[in-house]
């Protein structure tokens, strides 16, 4: 299934306060991270002095075991968490002083589905579109197109709580795409989906990327990373161990991407660091 080209040809950020002409921004790195460190209030260092850059239009993978610092990094880059140290530029905007501009430029599909369960798909999308400064007409048109593309048109007026997991995930993606984000952060976007639904999502993401959307993906599915990503970083204990193309990494480990992952992060089963459990991720500390 192909996404409608009309929706993807350009990326006009509809936020009236943060309108960006992306055609003028070619050549600019989509994400630039210098010496990012994040220490939580309980002194747990989740991210330890990492630097990397993601090019415009690149599909970038950010892999690592549980508790490695992936989600923390993503929450920092999406403005939900403040970094302890480091300089970060997203879509040409500096994190901190230009958070609103960044928010208008990115979409973030979080690990769980973040929808209003007691509202319909239509209501969910209309609210999101409005919050991003889209006009009523733009919002209705865009919501209709996305619901059509993601095959949710028939259930658009039903409450989301009645949806299956796959339907919720697709609607969540629609909510993230409402405002034509320039950069998409995807935190395990196919977690809990069956193989067919996963493949549908992959196709969507691949098409979006082909049309120019920069992708920043974390996943535990190595096959997903292998199929989608042009480059990968592997992070462990808050530090980036290696960054390269999947092909080069596989070559180096002389095996699959699973072998690469185990090679760089070890064989032991990982759990989230329980010392960090006292810190509610919602608390911006």
């Amino acid at each position, binding site marked *: 299934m192909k996404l409608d080209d009309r929706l993807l040809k350009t990326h006009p950020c509809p*936020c009236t306060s943060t309108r960006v002409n992306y055609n003028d921004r070619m050549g600019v790195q989509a994400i630039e991270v210098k010496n990012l460190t994040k220490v939580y209030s309980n002194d747990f260092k989740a991210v330890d002095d990492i630097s990397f850059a993601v090019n415009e239009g690149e599909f970038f993978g950010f892999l690592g075991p549980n508790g490695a610092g992936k989600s923390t990094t993503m929450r920092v880059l999406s403005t*939900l968490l403040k970094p302890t140290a480091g300089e970060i530029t997203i879509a040409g905007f500096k994190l901190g002083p230009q958070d609103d501009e960044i928010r208008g430029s990115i979409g973030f599909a979080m690990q769980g589905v*973040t929808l209003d369960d007691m*509202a319909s798909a239509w209501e969910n999308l209309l609210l999101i579109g409005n919050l991003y400064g889209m006009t009523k007409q733009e919002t209705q048109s865009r919501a209709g197109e996305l619901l059509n593309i993601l095959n949710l048109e028939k259930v658009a007026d039903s409450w989301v709580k009645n949806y299956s997991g796959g339907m919720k995930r697709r609607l969540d993606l629609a909510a993230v795409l409402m405002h034509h984000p320039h950069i998409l952060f995807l935190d395990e976007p196919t977690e809990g989906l069956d193989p067919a639904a996963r493949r549908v999502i992959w196709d969507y993401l691949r098409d979006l990327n082909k049309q120019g959307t920069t992708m920043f993906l974390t996943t535990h599915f190595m096959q997903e990373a292998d199929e989608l990503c042009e480059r990968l970083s592997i992070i462990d204990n808050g530090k980036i161990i290696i960054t390269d193309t999947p092909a080069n990494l596989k070559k180096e480990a002389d095996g699959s991407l699973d072998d690469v992952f185990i090679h760089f992060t070890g064989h032991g089963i990982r759990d989230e660091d329980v010392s960090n459990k006292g810190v509610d991720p919602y608390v911006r500390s």
Partner: protein
Amino acid sequence: MTEFSKIKYLFFRGFKQATRPYAALAPELIIPLFFFLINSSAFQRLVDLPGFEYTTYLQFYAPVGLLTAIFVSSGSTGLEVVTDISTGYMDRLFLAPIKRWYIVFAKLAAVGLKSATLTSIMLIMFMLFGAQFNGGIIGLLFILLFAFIFAMAWAGIGLSLAFITKNPRVVQSAFIFFFPFSFITTAQLPLELLEGWYKIAVQLNPVTYILEGMRAILATGEIGQTVFVGLLVASGFAVITLSVATYAFRKSIVKQ
């Protein structure tokens, strides 16, 4: 205009959240009516007490029923916010390029409207059961104003606990505040008939003045000093609880 539109959409969303599922509205309608019917019948003979100026206890108790409607209809606000936090929906809102106070403001306004709506429904029902309302349109507007302000004030307690603890059980337990604030008032007897420590406690309870303000409107229809004192106290109550809620909100979202 765009910014107003954002608040408007958040307000509509907040109102829908507060009224869905519709079945959950049943207890919010039944509980005040239950209190009203049971107590106005059980304590009917209290009107025979010397110094009791009302001819029917039902008339005396009607504003307590309205107050109960406000308590009950605004009491779930904290839980609704905790749900938004635990499902990640609050993060979805935080990711939008909006001022974050819009989220809280719109939610409170929605709760105020919901309470005002339920209060007016209750008022009609009480009148069907024989309560008199002498306030006319102006009186009704003042009753709705009481409902709107006090609902936001009461929601402020649940909101504060929601932002501080993010725990549904803790937020749910805030319901216990209903008992002292609601019962240690002139709900059962006029102030003149109360004595000792209880009378002092009643005079210290801000809800007493809110209740008396509403009672004055129902009984006489006069918008006088009692009404304005009641509104002033309700507003002060709201300022305190919403300040705490705002502080807790900022503490929970400020990126340290």
